[in-house]
């Protein structure tokens, strides 16, 4: 009797724990299954149907702009921080001093009633030519509504950015261009291969600074500007001890991916820095690249 009881107990226990051939499979990875797209995609009409509101040239989330603390890596903080770069270059840039945005450390945004939208940013800025970096605080106000106009920027701790001494180099360049027998001209800085002749680099840097005035003026929360190329440089006769230049520059606007042409007339000297006299956007002639076949 005892033995039968033992057998029954063991049999029951086996039944409960399962057979010796049980296979423990790793959890099936549903994400690899071809049909595991989010249900929302099939159910909503976003899949390219006619009755979807088409957002042409704008972003879907424009109505729900980020407020409060911002993710420093996301585009709202990044675009605002780029404006700080343009501002610093207009104020303190020179043929031997250029600023690039290295990273955004933190950011905050808030709506300012009747004025627009204000961003507070902690950024790390790089002085490109001397290859030094510095932390900097800045505020960027993008005007909205009735108030038009360009972004307003305030930056603090900028003094540290000027620590690289460029006085001697700037003076030497100034004298060289002032005393030149013939006025300087140049094209395509950099060229198609990204190359700039060493003695042309200061002209490229000057273009960077001058175009920052345009980029500062044109920047909004929906743009991200960089200078793509200096297409043409023409030095004009020196006036009032200021070197004078006519530049044709190409800007790259990231969100639209467009290349925008600008003509800039500006002066420069070491004590006065860059002063823009005229800036004019040039229409880019699409038809000019290749004539369409018209019969």
């Amino acid at each position, binding site marked *: 009797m005892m033995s039968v009881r033992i057998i029954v107990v063991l049999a029951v226990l086996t039944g409960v724990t399962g057979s010796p051939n049980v*296979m423990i499979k790793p959890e099936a990875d549903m994400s690899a299954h071809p049909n595991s*797209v989010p249900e929302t995609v099939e159910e909503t009409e*976003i899949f390219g149907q006619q009755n979807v509101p088409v*957002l042409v040239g704008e972003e879907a989330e424009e109505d729900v702009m980020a407020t409060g603390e911002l993710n420093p890596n996301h585009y709202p903080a990044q675009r605002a921080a780029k404006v700080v770069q343009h501002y610093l270059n207009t104020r303190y840039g020179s043929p031997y001093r250029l600023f690039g945005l290295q990273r955004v450390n933190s950011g905050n945004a808030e709506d300012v009633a009747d004025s627009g939208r204000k961003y507070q940013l902690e950024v790390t800025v790089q002085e490109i030519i001397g290859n030094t970096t510095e932390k900097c605080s800045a505020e960027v106000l993008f005007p909205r509504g009735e108030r038009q106009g360009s972004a307003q920027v305030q930056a603090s701790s900028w003094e540290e950015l000027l620590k690289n001494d460029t006085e001697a180099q700037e003076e030497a360049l100034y004298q060289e261009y002032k005393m030149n027998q013939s006025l300087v001209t140049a094209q395509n800085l950099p060229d198609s*291969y*990204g190359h700039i002749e060493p003695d042309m680099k200061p002209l490229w840097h000057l273009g960077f600074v001058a175009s920052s005035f345009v980029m500062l003026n044109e920047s909004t929360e929906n743009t991200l500007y960089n200078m793509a190329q200096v297409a043409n440089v023409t030095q004009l006769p020196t006036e009032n001890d200021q070197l004078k230049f006519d530049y044709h520059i190409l800007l790259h606007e990231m969100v639209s991916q467009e290349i925008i042409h600008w003509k800039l007339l500006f002066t420069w000297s070491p004590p006065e820095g860059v002063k823009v006299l005229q800036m004019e956007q040039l229409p880019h002639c699409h038809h000019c690249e290749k004539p369409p076949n018209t019969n």
Partner: protein
Amino acid sequence: MEKKTRTFWIVGSFLLILETSNSLVEGLESTRSYDYTKYHSMDEIYRWMEDVERGNPELVSSAIYGHTYEERNITLLKLGLQNPESREKKVIWMDCGIHAREWIAPAFCQWFVKEIVNSYKTNKKLEQILQNVDIYVTPVINVDGYIFTWANDSTRLWRKSRSTPPPGSGCYGVDLNRNFNANWGTVGVSFDSCSNTYCGKSAGSEPEAKAVMDFVGKLVNRTLCFLTIHSAGQLILLPYGHPEISAPNYNELVSVGKAAAAEMKKLHGMNYTVGTSPQILYANSGSSRDWARLIGIPFSYTFELRDKGEFSHLLPEEQIKPACEEAFAGALSIITYVHDKTYGTLPNAAVTTMTTTISGVAMTIWSTVMVVSLTIGVLM
């Protein structure tokens, strides 16, 4: 041995040695004499593809899988080794040059091929990957656009294809990375044919985009990963471009992307930001990356290579080497991950196997005890 026969053997052996060393040299030369630190014209790239294939027949084969608007070949190189057990091979896809002006991208595809060719014989892991996976590399998808950027100084910054203007317009080209069948025409696009984000007249209307969709579409069930290479911005973008759609494996896409970015940073200290396009760049639709994820390829990334705006698309040639080195590290990191995930050499997979083994052993012991007890019980 007869004199004639001996001569025959001597001459024959000599010719054999000559031929073998010739193809060895050719194989090496096909990668060594080509300057990977310079930008190359399309003619040079076509010729290079032929040389690489001819010089490495056991690893490289080519295929023409479509034609551009101006009827040029769209060519890929398939990198793979014979699988010892003749198992079905999985697929990894990489394309470069959807946007014509992003010259560093085709430069990277060529660099990638060169790295694989030069190291697969001495890198056991790479050899294993190539035995299990075929890597399809298209150095230039938008051939017409790329050639156009080489025409003269004023064309260097062209982005789109070179399709003829639609009726009533004077503007050429479609943004191929807005033309794929993935929420086409919904966000981040323009319907103005003069715009640089013109998405075309319908999803897949452009032959270049259609060629990719047709070819990859046939391989989708075997495809582990889809990488599309662009510049600039130093970003690793994951699907989707639409701000209201998330991939079901978003978390894994992020962690794999971040691991790749970490590998990239080790080389030259460059930061690559990881996220969806609407998070870190802008919303968009109709991208090849989105299309790949939508049809079920689990891992799909857009790489935006150097730089962050100093030169943008006009990246100096002296940066080709460091840019490609870091991009290679990033791409290889993702390729290795998706390979190991499938072929069970990941740490997680190992733990599961271990658990399986332990449970199996436990059950064996238990059933032995059972049988013994039963036997004893019956005998008693």
